C-alpha cells in the first residue's frame, strides 16, 4: 500500500465497507481536498465493480449449467468418483485395495479347474506374444511383468524399423493420470536409468518431436496416477534400426 495519510485511509475504508456514504461531510471534504484519494477511490470502486461483474458471470454460468441436459463426460462421473473413493478406501485399508495383481497372484485366486485352464491358455498366449516381441523373455524379472487388468500391451515400434515416427501402445489411461515413455540404452540392465523420458502423455501414442538419435534402444511405457504414482509398466521392447542404404 502506498504511504498515505492514515486518516484518509480510514475514511476511504469506511466508505468502501459501507460505514460512510459519499455525501457524509467528512467524505465530501476529503474528496474535494485530496486528488490522490479521488483517484484511489475511483480505482477501488472499479475493482469492486470488476468483482461484482465476475461474480455475476459466475452466477449466470451456474444457472446456464443447470439447464444443460447432456454434456460430454457426464456418463463417466459416476465411474470416476467411485473409482477414486475405492482407491482412497484402499489407501486407508490396504486389505481392501483394488490394485493390479501380478499374474502369480491372479493365478492363485483362480481355484476352479475351468478358470485354471483359462489361465494356462492365457499364460501360453502371453509367452508367445513376449517371444514375438523379442524382449528378454527367457528370464523375465518379476517386476517387469505386465501388471493390471488393463495391461499395457501391443507396443510398437518393435523389432527392426527404419524410421521411428510414432510410439504406440494399448492401455487405459488412469483417471486424471498420464503415460510416460522411457527409452533405455540397448540391452541395458533392468534397473538402468532411462536415457530419455517423455512424460505427461494423455493418449496412447507419442510422436517424437526430435529425432531419436540411437540406432538401437529399448523402451517401455509407464502409466501414472493423477498424483504421479507409477501404477503399472509394460515390458521393455527392443528397437534395432536397419542400416540405411
Amino acid at each position, binding site marked *: 500500500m502506498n504511504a498515505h495519510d492514515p486518516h484518509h485511509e480510514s475514511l476511504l475504508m469506511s466508505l468502501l465497507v459501507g460505514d460512510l456514504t459519499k455525501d457524509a461531510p467528512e467524505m465530501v471534504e476529503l474528496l474535494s481536498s485530496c486528488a490522490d484519494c479521488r483517484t484511489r477511490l475511483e480505482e477501488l470502486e472499479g475493482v469492486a465493480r470488476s468483482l461484482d461483474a465476475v461474480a455475476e458471470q*459466475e452466477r449466470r454460468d451456474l444457472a446456464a449449467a443447470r439447464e444443460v441436459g447432456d454434456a*460430454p463426460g457426464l456418463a463417466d*462421473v459416476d465411474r470416476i468418483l467411485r473409482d477414486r473413493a475405492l482407491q482412497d478406501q484402499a489407501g486407508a485399508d490396504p486389505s481392501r485395495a483394488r490394485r493390479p495383481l501380478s499374474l502369480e497372484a491372479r493365478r492363485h485366486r483362480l481355484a476352479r479347474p475351468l478358470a485354471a485352464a483359462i489361465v494356462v491358455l492365457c499364460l501360453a498366449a502371453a509367452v508367445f506374444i513376449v517371444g514375438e516381441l523379442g524382449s528378454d523373455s527367457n528370464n523375465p524379472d518379476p517386476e517387469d511383468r505386465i501388471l493390471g487388468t488393463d495391461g499395457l500391451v501391443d507396443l510398437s515400434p518393435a523389432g527392426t524399423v527404419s524410421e521411428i515416427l510414432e510410439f504406440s501402445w494399448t492401455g487405459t489411461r488412469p483417471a*486424471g493420470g498420464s503415460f510416460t515413455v522411457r527409452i533405455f540404452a540397448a540391452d541395458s540392465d533392468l534397473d538402468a536409468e532411462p536415457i530419455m523420458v517423455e512424460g505427461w502423455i494423455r493418449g496412447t501414442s507419442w510422436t517424437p518431436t526430435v529425432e531419436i538419435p540411437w540406432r538401437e534402444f529399448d523402451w517401455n511405457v509407464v502409466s501414472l496416477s493423477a498424483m504421479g504414482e507409477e501404477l503399472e509398466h509394460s515390458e521393455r521392447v527392443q528397437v534395432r534400426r536397419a542400416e540405411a542404404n
Partner: protein
Amino acid sequence: MTETLRDDAEERARAHRADLALVEAVLAGDSAALDALIKRLECVPRILHTLNERAGRVLTPADLADLSQDVLVLIWEKLKTFEGRATLETWTYRFCWLESRNCFRRVYRGREIGPGASALIFEELPAAEVSLAIEHEAIEIGLSELGPPGSEVIRLKHFEERTFPEIGSLLGIPTNTAKTHYYRGLEWLRQRLRSLGEGME
C-alpha cells in the same frame, strides 16, 4: 425487504452447512453420501460445457470429456479443503473455470489440437466476452495471489453476497477485522490489477 434478505442469508447458510455435512460424510466413507455427492458433481461436465460454449467451442466433445475427468479427480483430491463457505456447485465452478482456462490456453498454443479438433477463433468472440474473460482471469490471479484471509473475505462479500457481520461470524473474526481485511485486500487487488493490466498492454 430486510426480512427477505435475512431469510435469503439464512437459507444460504443452511445450504452451505448441509453441503459441508455431505462432504464430511463422504470423507468418512458414507456410501449414501457418496451417491448424493456423485449426483451433485454431475454439475462439473455441465459447467465445463457451458464455459466452452461461452468461449466459442474451443474444445471438442472428446477434449471436454477428458477435461471433465481431470477436474473431477482434482475436486476429489481437494474435497477435504471444502469448508462450506459456498455451495458445492460454486466451489466446483472455480476448479472448472481455472482448469478450462488452462486447457483453452494449451489449445491456443496448438499443443493439443489433434486432427479435426476445433481451432480457436478468438477474433470471432464478442469484444465484451473477451474483455470479461481478461477481467475474470486478472481477478482470479489477483485473488489467488492475495490468499486468505483477504481473498476469503472478498469472495464472501462479492461472490456470496455476505454482510460483514456474517463474514466475521463465518471466519471467526470480529466484524471490524473483516472490514479491514476487505479494504486491504481491495487495495492490494487495485495495485495488482494495475500491474497485470500494464503487463497485458
